[in-house]
């Protein structure tokens, strides 16, 4: 199979019919500048060396690939491995991208970083990157998300970032992205926008994927070392889709099945979910063409998920492309399924997963028992659940 990458002849950043650059003109020159700077640095060995060194000495890479023995036994089917992105510095895969972009911004002589955040993980990662390389930092976060992720809000402040509450629209991730784009439009000459996922206008989907692809590169080496062969399945949750692309990308040429798990919220028929493939259609939103939850008139619908990081109306444009190519299969897990998986992993393995990652575990709970014991699944455990503990307690009606 030919590697499913962007067609290098298409300079406009399309994956098949998805992607592109749908932004106000003010940002177009900045995107072209970014594309240019990134394509140079991508090939620059001293930049790559610097990033690799930071990942080894600061992020804690490579993150372990852990055999979840008790979970495997409990489910009674395929062998389950966890790629432990939760053990990366700041507690999620988001740091891979944030550090890469912070370094890039520094090289581009920008002195200020801005970012949106949903669950707060990307905000924390960007604030960390800014502190590390010495840049100013402002984070936009929906007021509803600030409430359910108050711990991360305080972490960002401790890291020296200013956190701006977004009080318009649905007050979640999409509104934080709108505000970040507005800020970037205003301060484009001095500011770099650290978009947190494989979404938005070109070159972000490609660049963020490249920074996250370290996950899959490591996982491939690790599984071959441990099992002597490639896995049968890769499973990852998909909000914007960066942890999934990060794990999948290295395996696209291989005979490995891949499953992306969206947020099924309270169920697809309730309309309260964030399952773009199950409930959406093609649309253009926040800089690119992809699948979108929208009404008949093209207005963007509100979404719901127990996990703030998956609570988003669209999905990175490479995902519908891989779906059309039948390379990746997409499904969803409901809030309840994710919450059960959250507790299951905590009790069987002593690992509290992020609610986002719990969606990938929920899919594994369904799949693993159907597979024979010699099959291998790798789950991207994209983040740790410390940030979700208060939120889960609230849902369970427990006062802390």
């Amino acid at each position, binding site marked *: 199979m030919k590697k499913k990458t962007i067609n290098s002849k298409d300079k406009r950043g399309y994956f098949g019919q998805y992607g592109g650059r749908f932004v106000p003109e003010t940002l177009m020159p900045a995107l072209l500048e970014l594309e240019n700077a990134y394509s140079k640095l991508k090939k620059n060995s001293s930049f790559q060396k610097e990033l690799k060194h930071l990942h080894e000495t600061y992020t804690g890479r490579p993150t372990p690939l852990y055999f979840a023995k008790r979970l495997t036994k409990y489910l009674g089917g395929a062998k389950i491995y966890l790629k432990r992105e939760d053990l990366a510095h700041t507690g999620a895969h988001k740091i891979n991208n944030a550090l890469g972009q912070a370094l890039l911004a520094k090289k581009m002589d920008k002195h200020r970083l801005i970012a949106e955040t949903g669950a707060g993980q990307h905000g924390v990662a960007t604030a960390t990157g800014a502190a590390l390389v010495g840049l100013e930092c402002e984070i936009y976060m929906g007021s509803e998300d600030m409430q359910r992720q108050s711990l991360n809000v305080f972490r960002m402040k401790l890291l020296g970032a200013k956190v701006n509450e977004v009080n318009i629209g649905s007050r979640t991730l999409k509104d934080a992205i709108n505000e970040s784009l507005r800020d970037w439009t*205003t301060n484009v000459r001095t500011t770099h926008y650290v978009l947190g996922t494989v979404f938005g206008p070109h070159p972000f989907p490609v660049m963020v994927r490249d920074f996250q692809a370290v996950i899959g590169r490591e996982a491939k080496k690790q599984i071959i070392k441990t099992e002597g062969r490639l896995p049968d399945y890769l499973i990852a949750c998909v909000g914007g889709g960066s942890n999934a692309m990060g794990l999948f990308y290295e395996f696209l040429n291989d005979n490995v099945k891949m499953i992306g798990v969206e947020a099924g919220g309270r169920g697809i028929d309730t309309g309260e979910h964030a399952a773009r493939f199950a409930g959406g259609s093609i649309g253009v939103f926040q800089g690119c063409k992809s699948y979108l939850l929208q009404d008949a*008139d093209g207005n963007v619908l509100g979404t719901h998920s127990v996990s703030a990081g998956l609570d988003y109306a669209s999905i990175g444009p490479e995902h519908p492309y891989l779906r059309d190519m039948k390379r990746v299969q997409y499904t969803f897990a409901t809030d309840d399924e994710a919450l059960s998986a959250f507790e299951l992993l905590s009790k069987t393995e002593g690992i509290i997963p992020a609610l986002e990652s719990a969606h990938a575990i929920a899919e594994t709970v369904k799949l693993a028992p159907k597979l024979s014991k010699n099959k291998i699944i790798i789950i991207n455990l994209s983040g740790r659940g410390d940030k979700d503990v208060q939120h889960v307690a609230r849902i369970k009606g427990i006062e802390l």
Partner: protein
Amino acid sequence: MHKIEKIFKKLKSQNKKAFIPYIMAGDPDLEKTMEYILILEECRADIIELGVPFSDPLADGPTIQRAAERALKAGVTLKKVISFVKKLRQHTQIPIVLMTYYNPVFKYGEESFINDAVDAGVDGVIIPDLPPDEGEGLIKLSRKTGLNTIFLVAPTSTEDRIKKITKACRGFVYYVSITGITGSKLILEKTFKTHINLVKKLTDKPVAVGFGVSTPEDAKMVSQIADGVIVGSAIVKKFFEHPLGATEFIKKLREEME
């Protein structure tokens, strides 16, 4: 010659500038919008820029965001705005330029949108999140029907981009006065005059300036450099907060451009 082109030509021969006010269709409802457009015409507006509400207007500041929220709450959609223009044509022939985000147009279907809009009497369209790089299909279809495509030039646009954008424009070129969103304070950079003169050197098409023009003084200053002045947020705000004082304010804006 197209209606908008004619207007700029006529104004130029009289040594005058075009006044292009913006309002949001359906804020607070379409009956009021009809009333407001007739007031704007009475205040000697030359072209009306009519906003189409969208859930995520990322080029707009809080004033127009809130106006869009009110219009969406009133159930206004792109389809309804197009039928509204058809009805409006029984009362006035003032040129109407729709300002809409791209997704409603994409969802409607570019071809159906252009046909229905032209049929209703829409003269032009501005899509702030559709740079000409992504607008090839829409441009092609518009040329067949005579719908004016108006693209934005920004203070950050390079010479190459200015050439590309102005080439794709019909009717006029929309020059964004500031790096920022609509309704921001107008703080013109020192390079404003140089940059806009570069635009005028690179195209024969009229250049109208918008974003941040909010006071009669701003309008006066901008009219000395541009061929047209676009005022949005300030008028939306006036109609919303002090509808009775709006006429006087709009007249003042117009007077200062002369």
